[in-house]
């Protein structure tokens, strides 16, 4: 591995133990990836374990063990940085069935961690959608620890980042470097397979849940291979893109993909494939879409206990759809609806009257927290519009105490009013 003078100095300990540990981690990772050098980054998105990853009990202690050596003598970062959501809004933790002891510990660990990151200059966006605050630029190298954001910066902006985790992105933000490997290199970016919609379906008729299901069906076909989507409407908006990106980022573990006519490295199918022939050409038809809905619905129970929305954070369109369904009505007694967005979007939703409509109906509107993780404590049947959250709700239910219903934002809102699931399947 080649290191420059600044990197050698960091490694020698001249810039303190935190910086030394950070560059040790990056050099180890670079060697594991087969990288020959580190590359300068211009931005980082952080996922500190003590902010987001169940900040109580054993995990709370382990979070500290993973990062304390990195952060103990750090008072600034070398690049602009944003940060993942906090684990839980303490004001609603009881509704999400956390015990008083857990909440007290959460308050301490998550509170101290977020204070620390704000003190060293991290932008307190607390969201998996940092592009609202700090958009990417074509060809710039960045380090991001959040699966949808990694896929978004690479694909939508043509920025370059690998699937960095919380320890790696923190190390990158401390040193200003990350390994020059994987998706940072042009050779690892072109699409490998194509995905089209079957003739029996029409993107123009898709609601938000259909995009999630399409994304799950796509990932079951392309698996770890980088797909190029063909035929996606050029005017696709941020809400539908969010649903398309969130699921496949987790289910396929992709860093980069392409959408012909929409994303910067895909002006044409040929360009998106880097001039090569696709290794496979897949079609997602009605059968595959319905299968995805069946996989995402882990129960046939109709009685709903919780409606948990906001993984990743709800967009204004989703908040508006919720408000339209709930306005002037009442959520059924015993049913809890929690809608989570970013602080910035909540401000706008207030101005537009959306949060009033939701709250007056008896719903909870919150911001800056992770409803996917914080929702894994509840007992009963959860309705959600997110297959990404579904993955975690179902995954952390080994004892079978939690089941999931999946459907559109509007179907989730209607279930809140009646307590009954009547979600539409295409």
């Amino acid at each position, binding site marked *: 591995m080649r290191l420059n003078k600044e990197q050698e100095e960091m490694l020698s300990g001249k810039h303190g133990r935190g910086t030394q540990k950070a560059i040790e981690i990056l050099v180890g990772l670079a060697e594991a*990836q087969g990288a020959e050098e580190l590359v300068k980054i211009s931005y980082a998105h952080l996922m500190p374990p003590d902010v987001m990853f169940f900040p109580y009990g054993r995990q709370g202690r*382990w979070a500290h063990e993973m990062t304390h050596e990195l952060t103990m003598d750090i008072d600034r970062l070398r690049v602009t940085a944003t940060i993942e959501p906090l684990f839980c809004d303490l004001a609603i933790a009881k509704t999400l069935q956390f015990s008083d002891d857990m909440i007290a510990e959460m308050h301490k660990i998550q509170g101290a961690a977020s204070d620390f990151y704000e003190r060293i200059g991290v932008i307190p966006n607390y969201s998996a959608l940092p592009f609202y605050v700090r958009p990417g630029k074509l060809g710039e190298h960045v380090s991001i620890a959040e699966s949808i954001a990694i896929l978004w910066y690479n694909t939508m902006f043509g920025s370059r980042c*690998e699937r960095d*985790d919380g320890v790696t992105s923190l190390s990158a933000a401390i040193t200003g470097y990350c390994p020059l490997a994987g998706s940072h290199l042009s050779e690892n970016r072109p699409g490998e397979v194509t995905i089209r919609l079957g003739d029996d379906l029409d993107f123009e008729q898709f609601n938000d849940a259909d995009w999630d299901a399409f994304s799950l069906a796509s990932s079951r076909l392309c698996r*770890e291979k980088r797909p190029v989507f063909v035929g996606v409407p050029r005017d696709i908006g941020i809400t539908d893109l969010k649903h398309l990106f969130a699921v496949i980022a987790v289910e396929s573990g992709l860093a980069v993909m392409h959408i012909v006519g929409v994303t910067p490295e895909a002006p044409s199918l040929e360009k998106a494939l880097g001039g090569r022939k696709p290794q496979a050409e897949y079609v997602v038809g009605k059968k595959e879409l319905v299968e995805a809905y069946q996989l995402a619905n882990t129960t046939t129970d109709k009685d709903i206990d919780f409606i948990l929305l906001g993984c990743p954070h709800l967009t204004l369109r989703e908040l508006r759809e919720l408000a339209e369904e709930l306005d002037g009505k009442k959520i059924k007694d015993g049913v809890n609806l929690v809608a989570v967005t970013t602080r910035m979007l909540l401000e706008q939703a207030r101005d537009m009257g959306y949060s009033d409509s939701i709250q007056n109906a008896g719903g909870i509107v919150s911001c800056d927290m992770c409803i996917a993780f914080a929702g894994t404590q509840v007992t009963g049947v959860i309705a959600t519009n997110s297959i990404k959250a579904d993955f975690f709700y*179902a*995954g952390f239910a080994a004892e079978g105490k939690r089941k999931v219903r999946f459907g559109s934002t509007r179907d989730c809102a209607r279930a809140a009013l009646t307590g009954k699931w009547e979600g539409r399947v295409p």
Partner: protein
Amino acid sequence: MKQVLKGKSIKKLGTVEGEALVTTDLVAFWGGTDWETGDIVEVGHEAKGKNVKGKILVFPAGKGGAGDTFGYYYLARSGKAPKALICNRAQNTTIAGALLVDTPMIYGFKEDVVKLIKSGDRVKVNSDDGEIEIIRS
């Protein structure tokens, strides 16, 4: 019968030997695997119900969120980690998790390891030379 395959090792951590658990599906350690038991719990997963503890885990590639690395760390801290990781394509989040707790990991073989190795095979993993040996009696 012995068969030796050559790949890229993430770190020199000596040689380990164990029983292979092979899955044809991508593996997530956070949400897809229960870090307290080592069971693969993902709905619809080909290896759902199998346990990864102490196994030579053979899989096409990792998946999951960026938090998958922490998931692997928690799995290891609760004593339920595999003995070694063998995969075709190495996800950065998988490498980072293995590095945090020093699990030997080899990837990028010429051959498709998921097709070549069968669950139950004895596999010797030499992380110093980036070689794995499939031992069948």
